[in-house]
């Protein structure tokens, strides 16, 4: 069953066309790799799905519902979580608090009830528990009470992953999760992602420059170049596609 359906999406920034008539689908329960040279439009697609950028043309459906009709803050509630290429954490909050915000849409105590302590203690305790469980799952409990500022980049990337997990997403979009990791760590991350996907019945949309990792975990890979899709298929098909080889060789020269 198709979970995410991107149809004919075009995004322009002034003269730059960041996405050009892009269409592809992601099946429920699958891992879909999204690759392409720098500036190909991968992050832009994430931003369209999370409603940060407007698409000039096209449609995006999640479980058949029109995503582009929803405001940005409704997306996590629909079941789409994401991590950011350059992090979008809150440096002054502790790691634990950062992760607790991930469960914002799953909690409901507003200002009035909080002011009067009307049920806020119980909800707060359950949020803390949820966050702690995610931190345990990602081996982050050691830094739970550390402010997010000042931790290594790789750790913060995992904090973002924990934050996305507590929102209980069905689709999880990861923007370059392996940045800054060593070769062995990349292997561990790949195993972790596959395990998480199984344990939490996640569908993954994975942007990553680390080809070994993408090709190793993905069921399907979509390749972008200058905003347009140039190939789509199984890792093996994509790797041998002349257009893909050309795009990457061209990018390296």
């Amino acid at each position: 069953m198709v979970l995410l359906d991107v149809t004919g999406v075009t995004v322009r920034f002034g003269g730059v066309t960041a996405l050009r008539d892009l269409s592809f689908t992601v099946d429920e329960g699958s891992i879909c790799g999204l690759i392409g040279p720098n500036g190909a439009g991968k992050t832009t697609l994430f931003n369209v799905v999370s409603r940060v950028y407007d698409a000039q043309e096209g449609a995006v459906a999640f479980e058949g519902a029109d995503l582009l009709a929803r405001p940005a803050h409704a997306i996590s509630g629909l079941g789409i979580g994401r991590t950011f290429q350059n992090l979008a954490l809150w440096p002054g909050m502790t790691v634990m608090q950062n992760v607790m915000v991930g469960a914002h849409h799953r909690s409901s105590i507003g200002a009035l009830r909080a002011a009067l302590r009307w049920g806020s203690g119980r909800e707060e305790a359950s949020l803390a528990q949820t966050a702690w469980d995610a931190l345990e799952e990602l081996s982050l409990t050691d830094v739970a009470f550390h402010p997010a500022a000042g931790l290594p980049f790789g750790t913060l990337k995992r904090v973002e992953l924990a934050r996305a997990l507590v929102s209980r997403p069905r689709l999880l979009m990861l923007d370059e999760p392996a940045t800054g990791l060593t070769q062995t760590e990349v292997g561990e991350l790949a195993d972790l992602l596959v395990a998480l996907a199984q344990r939490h019945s996640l569908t993954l949309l994975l942007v990553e420059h680390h080809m070994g990792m993408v090709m190793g975990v993905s069921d399907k890979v979509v390749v972008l170049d200058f905003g347009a899709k140039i190939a789509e298929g199984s890792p093996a098909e994509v790797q041998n596609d002349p257009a893909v080889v050309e795009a990457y060789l061209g990018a390296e020269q």
Partner: protein
Amino acid sequence: MRAMGAVAAGSRQHRRRQIIGWVLFALVVALIPFLIAETYSPTIFGNRYTFGLGNLSQAIALMVAILGLNIATGYSGQLSLGHSFFVGSGAYLTAVLVNEFHWSYLSTLGVVVPGLFVFGVLFGIPALRIQGLYLGLLTFAVAAVFPSIIRLDEIKDRTGGSNGLLIESDLEPPTWAPLDTVTGWLHAIPGVGSRVPDGLTGRQEEAVYKYFLLVIVALVCFWLVRNILAGRVGRALVAIRDNQLGAAANGVNLAAYKTLSFGISAAVGGVAGTMLAMHSGFVGPDEFGFSMAILLIVGLIVGGAGTLHGAVVGGLAIQFVPVWSSQTQTLPGTDVALEGPYGTAILGGLLIAIIFALPGGAAQGFRRIKSQLMPVAPQPPTGSTG
């Protein structure tokens, strides 16, 4: 420099330490008015300084004003230079309700709080489209017109125009309040007792009673605001301040929380206005102009934006620093006379010093010292295995 080992958060030791802290706090708060009911005026390095109950009561109202400003500006990061508008509106609402409808001071809060909340929300709507310095400029303009609005011909009869309004209600202590008795006891304590008068004059009794009323209102405000900010809503506001993209992606409705923060901010500011009206029994248009708006921002920064203790320090600072600096008439320890507006200059100097020495404000500094001397180890939630 660790005086004690880290105690586990929520442990018995930690609780005990907190209780001792609160008892000491309560004692200081309860005894201070008696000690300074008769203005305390020591001479330090050749200058005579005053420490009076009136100034302290005013500082308490200013703490609440800064507490309100802190919500919109300190926590959710929206520069509001117009907070004096809310404080002034609260003060005038109280004055009019007391004078024309003979309400008691405290019952006017029933109108001030919801009224100012709605007002703040309306104010927050344009603030959704503008940010940073532009928002600062817009709110500053609003602060600047407040005195002119009060003087408008159409409402001059109500507001008293330039003359202000004398509030026709006294706050007399109820007969059961044992103010005189307590003073007598304190007077009998050897040593310290000599600072306390033998009994209180009528005016002093009234001042002490007002002080306690203001303290109670302030404590309730701080408690409510703390409850809001300590949890989900507080995290959402800080998330908006520090990374809007991340906040929205995690389901935080930016528009709703920003307007909410302006609403709460204005409501608390309105309470501060009511407190100022209670304190002085008078409201005048120029009290609530842009100089107050700036002073509140100064207090917020000096005390520490984004912390609750910062509002306490900030309120004391903006009340006492100008008073004490204007009382510094000779260069401390010398005969060299100082002339001119030293109060503002010293406040400005303090602001610069704080920004360099303690970027998070005084509260940050206190917190650092406290975590050094009395470290507390946060604990995982109780249901977890680790």
